[in-house]
Each structure stands twice: as structure tokens, then as C-alpha cells.
């Protein structure tokens, strides 16, 4: 098999093909990022630019159980960001929508 082709043989190939593309990253702690991927390594440490972070915060509602609290999204922008790999749950290539 020709492994030097641009085909996808293993999961990390998918990330390699996403370099210099806008990716979606899901993180621990109800956090999500979108940004342009510039570097990664085997720990899934990432370096991204033009990053927008979304944090999901559950506000408890008076008298309601925790699971029925209202959900707020807090957004934040960062121009260049290193993301430590141990917090990464998934990296998704640019959406084709």
C-alpha cells in the first residue's frame, strides 16, 4: 500500500489534512473551540489562530433540579492559542456546509 499518498490510513491523517483549515475542537469542561489549526503533536497538543472559545455554563434555576438549569454560552476570542492535549476530546475537520 502506498502510504505516501494523501489518503487517510489512520486517525491522525485526518488532522494532518486539516492543517491551515478551520477546525472544531471539543474540550473537557464543556468547552468548544473553533480556529485555524497550525500545529499538533501526538498528545493532541494544538496551536491554533483566530480562536473562538465557547463555554457552556449551567445556571441553576431557583427551585428546579440542576439538570433543568438554564444553559448560557460564554464566548471569548483569542488570536493565537496553545491548547494542551490532555483536555482535547475531539478534533473535527472543517465542516463542508
Amino acid at each position, binding site marked *: 500500500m502506498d502510504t505516501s499518498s494523501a489518503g487517510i490510513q489512520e486517525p491522525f491523517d485526518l488532522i494532518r489534512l486539516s492543517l*491551515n483549515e478551520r477546525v472544531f475542537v471539543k474540550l473537557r*469542561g464543556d468547552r468548544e473551540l473553533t480556529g485555524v489549526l*497550525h500545529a*499538533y*503533536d*501526538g498528545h493532541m*497538543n494544538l*496551536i491554533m489562530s483566530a480562536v473562538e472559545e465557547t463555554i457552556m455554563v449551567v445556571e441553576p434555576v431557583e427551585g428546579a433540579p440542576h439538570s433543568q438549569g438554564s444553559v448560557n454560552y460564554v464566548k471569548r476570542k483569542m488570536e493565537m492559542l496553545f491548547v*494542551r492535549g*490532555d483536555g482535547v476530546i475531539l478534533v473535527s475537520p472543517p465542516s463542508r456546509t
Partner: protein
Amino acid sequence: MLIFSVFKTLTDQTVIVELKNDLLITGVLKSVDQFLNIRLDNIQISDEVRHPHMIAVKNCFIRGSVVRYVQIPADAVDTQLLEDATRRGSRFCYKRCPKFPD
């Protein structure tokens, strides 16, 4: 190793380190090691009213494993170079790794 090299090129730059306890520390990157432990000089905690715990601390050593993000100045990195190094890095790894022969 690639990320370690990148951080080495960022010494003397001002960065914002965000920890997994939601503490944000701004400071000048003085050194980094292979575990991505970080030494910061001239530090400033954002929201010092809420977190006055480190008011008398001027420089610190941060354990790599407790870092969530490091915000770096965008003009301090060459993104093209980074992408090339990342592509090379992964191929290089496959070549040397006996599990992935060419």
C-alpha cells in the same frame, strides 16, 4: 518535541497562561522544559481582587500538566513554518517508528 521547540522560540515574549483552576497568569516566558513546565517572570494575575493569593509573587514555575491554554502573541509565530514542521514531524515519526514501516 515540536511544541517544546515552538515554546523555546517564544522565550522573552509576554504570554497569558490559563490554568485548569481557571486562574489566568500574564507574564514573560523565561523558560520551558520537555514537560512543558513553564517559568514566567514579572507575573500579573487577572482579577487580582478575586485572586489576591499571589499578590507578592513576582515570578513563578508552572507545572505543565495544569495548563489549559497559553495565549501567545500572533506575530511571534510563523504559521507556515509551523504547518510544514508539523507535516514533516508526523512523517518523520512514521519513518522511525517500526510499527509504521514505509
